[in-house]
């Protein structure tokens, strides 16, 4: 019987090869990481378990990105714990402010997570790296502590849902719109405990940045992770980045899937997910009149260079609406520099946007763009739960960088067509 890409990766990382879906297996981990919110607990549990040394100091990443640069004294203390632990253990991949980026953009960019890897991160958006053809799952702090000590993780072999996208994408329709559309069709628990494998001619033509965006939000459908078969586009991305050899896997044609879901994309418009669930997506033509106070472009979902280029294309020759705060956050320092070299930062600041150093900041209501009671934001981030970006009575609408940029100009949620 054929196997899916995920089954092949798991099989290469476990002792027993004869597992079936639903079995609990122990799997070797190629790269494990945590951030300033999840690492402090993981470090505490690591020490309490009696472990002396991490299983492999090259295979662990510590990234203070959520509340860093330190937003307050408590956050400063948490970040300090990471720094000290990294020094004490000789962990090479600790990223200090100035080199730091949002973890799920940073790790692929630095070639630390690679095709065929088992990647485990103490952050739910670890699924992002599935875009490279890796098996990448999010866990909590105790699990991460166990991995730091043992180098392996227990997991249940998941079934896979195959998604096939075909047809021609409309202008302004991006990976973000495809994933919001997909979640709206299957629901926020539509892929619970399962893998979402994205495939089809549309995915084959999609850039890496858009693939990362799609895989990033699979967790918003409850998925264990998402995965895309590596191809020429993946290999080009890895050129000059990969820090070690890697393995390319593909699903067999006769592999068995839980379900196969097909989407014809030519009817898909830019999407906007209404509060308070990512599944509440509507096509932009049905949004109606929704005034906004803030627009955020950034995060592990949409803070990459292509996202900034699209935002710049929309903002060129425009000014941010006087009643809107537009905050743009490149996801990593390299992306920031690239945007600077391309003149994008100049364009953003000239248009009246605030540009921030990389941080998760406002996405989870940390800082750098918190909403007051009754305020409303359009955001390229990944969650619009109650209170996610600030006051419990504020609202977040999720969309692509193109829609977020256009809405910042119009003062209400609009299609980029309306401002171009």
């Amino acid at each position, binding site marked *: 019987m054929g196997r899916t890409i995920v089954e092949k990766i798991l099989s290469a990382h476990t002792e027993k090869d004869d597992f079936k879906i639903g079995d609990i297996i122990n799997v070797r981990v190629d790269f494990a990481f945590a951030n300033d919110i999840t690492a402090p607990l993981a470090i505490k549990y690591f020490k309490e378990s009696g472990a002396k040394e991490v299983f492999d100091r090259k295979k662990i990443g510590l990234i203070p990105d959520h509340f860093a640069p330190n937003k307050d004294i408590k956050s400063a203390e948490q970040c300090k714990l990471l720094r000290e632990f990294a020094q004490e253990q000789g962990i090479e991949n600790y990223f200090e402010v100035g080199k730091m980026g949002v973890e799920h953009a940073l790790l692929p960019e630095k070639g630390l997570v690679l095709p065929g890897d088992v990647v485990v991160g103490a952050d*739910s958006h670890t699924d992002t790296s599935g875009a490279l053809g890796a098996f990448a799952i999010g866990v*909590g702090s105790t699990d991460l502590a166990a991995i730091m000590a043992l180098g392996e993780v227990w997991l249940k072999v998941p079934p896979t849902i195959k998604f096939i996208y075909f047809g021609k994408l409309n202008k302004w329709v991006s990976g973000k719109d495809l994933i919001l559309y997909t979640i709206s069709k299957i629901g*926020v*628990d539509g892929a619970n405990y399962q893998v979402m494998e994205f495939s089809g001619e549309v995915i084959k033509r999609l850039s890496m940045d858009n693939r990362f965006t799609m895989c990033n939000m699979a967790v918003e459908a409850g998925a264990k992770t998402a995965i895309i078969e590596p191809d020429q586009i993946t290999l080009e991305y890895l050129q000059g980045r990969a820090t070690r050899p890697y393995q390319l896997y593909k699903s067999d044609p006769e592999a068995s899937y839980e379900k196969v879901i097909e989407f014809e994309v030519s009817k898909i418009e830019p999407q906007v997910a209404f509060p308070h669930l990512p599944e509440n997506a509507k096509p932009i033509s049905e949004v109606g009149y929704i005034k906004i106070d803030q627009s955020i472009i950034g995060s592990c979902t949409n803070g990459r260079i292509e996202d900034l280029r699209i935002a710049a294309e929309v903002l060129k020759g425009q000014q941010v609406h006087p009643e809107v705060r537009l905050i743009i956050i490149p996801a990593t320092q390299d992306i920031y520099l690239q945007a600077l070299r391309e003149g994008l930062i100049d364009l953003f600041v000239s248009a009246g946007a605030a540009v921030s150093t990389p941080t998760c900041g406002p996405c989870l209501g940390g800082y750098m763009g918190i909403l007051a009671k009754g305020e409303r934001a359009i955001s390229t981030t990944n969650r619009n739960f109650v*209170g996610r970006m600030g006051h419990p009575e504020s609202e977040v609408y999720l969309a692509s960088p193109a829609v977020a940029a256009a809405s910042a100009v119009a003062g209400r949620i609009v299609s980029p067509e309306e401002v171009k």
Partner: protein
Amino acid sequence: MIIKGKVWKFRDNIDTDVIIPARYLNTSDPTELALHCMEDYDPQFTKKISRGDIIVAGKNFGCGSSREHAPIALKAAGLSCIIAKSFARIFFRNAINIGLPIFESEEITDQCTEGELLEIDTVKGTIKNLSTNKVYRTNLLPEFIQKVISVGGLKEYVKEELKRREIDV
């Protein structure tokens, strides 16, 4: 183990931002986290509940972020366990790892009301509604997870595993 407590009912898709808002994640102190548990859902929640009370929720409980602070806050607030139609996967792992018992049951969520008294037998895998005398079956955990729980959680499991490896060497 027998768990007994009063029911607090919750809807589908209770996310971890509601269980413990990210603005309080600059600490991992259980007592401090417990103070803000479910604050954006009902600001009075932690004042209303008594030690041992039980949350009975709809599907996809604990969806969203991987913050272990969510089950920690619920446990430290005094809740004895969570029963839901289904759990989001990271929350499920986290709850087991920190020792917050969780049970899946379709029927009980639909059939019990707030304030009723439940009794759960974790060995038999049964939930009894003491207010109506109805008995429901719940999931029994897979063998490996039971092993983790029997040694006292994942931290203890790691301790034992490290010892075993030392002997192997």
